[in-house]
């Protein structure tokens, strides 16, 4: 019987310092060679969330619906400026946003929580935040069920363009993984990063066009400043929310239209570059994890 193991190979020299490209290739190898581990971790995560509560997987469906209810009440009653078919309008943003926050929050603790394991087994740590992000896809998938229900309610907004949701989700996934591995590594060195991240996420949500349309900013004098205007439009979640919304909701007065492909493509390219940089940074920091934890 032979054990095939990628465990500690051979020669380690303290003087050797791998190049960024070498680190990137290593990171890709870490993930591809440990696909099985990522899969098991994702399965474990999903099982845990479903099994622990009375209603189990029903929470995956109820949670975004309840959140939507809160925002609908908030906006229609307090500001009384709701757009037509407003529940569908914001649900198109709540769904992807919940995936992002869940993934980033879970990834933040993913390495620190496994400190015992990291001090005892040599394995590529990058699988931990990647698994946390990937597990979020399941929640996103469950969220499509209430989405279908809401769309059935607003029947005239339905179009085959909803089939483009997975394409937009791929772009979001690339961006999310990059953020996830950065916060996971950062949290090893700064244990209170989790608090910072929680508040930044909340701020990010309100600064992104989730409850309002991106065009809403045009009416605000502050955003006449070209720099602020650029930042508002370059915000990855401005691009993503607008894209999801255009295939799910359309415009306030019209049915769904294809997303802005140019912005999506730019975001995909930028996110891929960001992911490459994040992976290199992660691999740089990885050797210190076992010492710091």
């Amino acid at each position, binding site marked *: 019987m032979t054990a095939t193991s990628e465990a500690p190979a051979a020669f380690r020299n303290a003087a050797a310092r791998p190049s960024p490209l070498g680190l990137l290739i290593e990171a890709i190898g870490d993930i591809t060679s440990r696909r099985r581990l990522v899969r098991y971790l994702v399965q474990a995560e999903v099982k845990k969330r479903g099994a622990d509560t009375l209603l189990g997987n029903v929470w995956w469906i109820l949670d975004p619906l309840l959140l939507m209810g809160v925002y609908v009440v908030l906006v229609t009653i307090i500001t009384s400026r709701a757009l037509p078919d407003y529940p569908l309008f914001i649900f198109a943003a709540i769904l992807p946003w919940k995936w992002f926050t869940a993934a980033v929050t879970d990834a933040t603790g993913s390495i620190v929580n496994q400190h015992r394991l990291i001090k005892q087994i*040599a394995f590529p740590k990058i699988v931990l935040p990647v698994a946390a992000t990937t597990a979020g896809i399941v929640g996103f998938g469950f969220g499509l069920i209430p989405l279908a229900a809401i769309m059935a309610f607003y029947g005239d907004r339905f179009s085959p363009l909803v089939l483009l949701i997975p394409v937009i989700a791929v772009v979001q996934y690339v961006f999310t993984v990059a953020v996830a591995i950065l916060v996971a590594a950062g949290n090893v060195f700064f244990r209170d990063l989790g608090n910072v991240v929680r508040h930044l996420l909340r701020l990010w949500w309100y600064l992104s066009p989730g409850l309002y349309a991106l065009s809403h900013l045009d009416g605000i004098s502050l955003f006449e400043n070209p720099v602020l205007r650029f930042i508002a439009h370059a915000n990855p979640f401005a691009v993503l929310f607008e894209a999801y919304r255009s295939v799910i909701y359309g415009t306030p007065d019209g049915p769904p239209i294809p997303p802005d492909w140019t912005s999506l493509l730019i975001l995909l390219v930028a996110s891929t570059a960001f992911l490459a940089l994040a992976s290199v940074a992660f691999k740089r920091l990885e050797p210190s994890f076992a*010492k710091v934890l």
Partner: protein
Amino acid sequence: MTDRPGPITDTDDAIGTRDLGVRYSLRFSRKKSMQRTLSQLLTREPAEQFWALRHVDLRVVHGESLAVIGPNGAGKSTLLQVLAGIIRPSEGVVDVRGHVSALLTLGAGFDVDLSGSENILLAGAFLGLDDRLMRDLLPGIVEYADLGQFIDAPLKTYSSGMRARLGFAIATSVDPDILLLDEVLATGDATFRAKSKARVLELVRDAKAVVLVTHDMEWVREYCNRAVLIEHGQIAFEGDPDEVVALHREHTEDEKRRKAAEARAAGLAPAIAR
């Protein structure tokens, strides 16, 4: 290929280190907050550092069973972590040839919400073992750990003895070339301890090389053919197990006497001051 030849010149060697050093920086030590670290960076307060290991030259040839002994905090476990590839050396070179299995502490990767069999597969994936191999090994592991019908129950329903048995069974399920052991011999109840000791001996016999960290001096004298004494991160003495154990005992006694003398002095000092 370089003008700095590797530490290993002989192909019989399983492990070699040359001038190995591991340095810890206390700047980012555990549970430091961002505020504390940033203020240190801003005030340019130099980071405290300490060498857990330094100038360690070690060779373990095939067929050898090496004991690493020494007082607590001397760097024994750090040495095993470096050999297992968990920690990268801060200076020097380490060369380990063959499939390494490290039995450091058992059951580290367990997830209490998963069942016994799921944990076996997960542990295998963490160890980097082939999934098919792990599935083949599964029945044997379950039988060895004596889990019975509990195998499909979540781990949180297990007793601590069952968890320890499962951890041991997984860690020893694959025959490694190089076996690294850190005080895992005392596990579970008396019956299982005897069983696990027999299994460790079997692994020690089959492995091409063994490095063992322990405080069990009887084991060292009985089953190891060489020993090193590590003190303050350096190899203080290396040689025949009996000699090394004797020296370690001597040093421990000295240390005790010194501590006692210090305590006496500290106790007397206030009296003198008065």
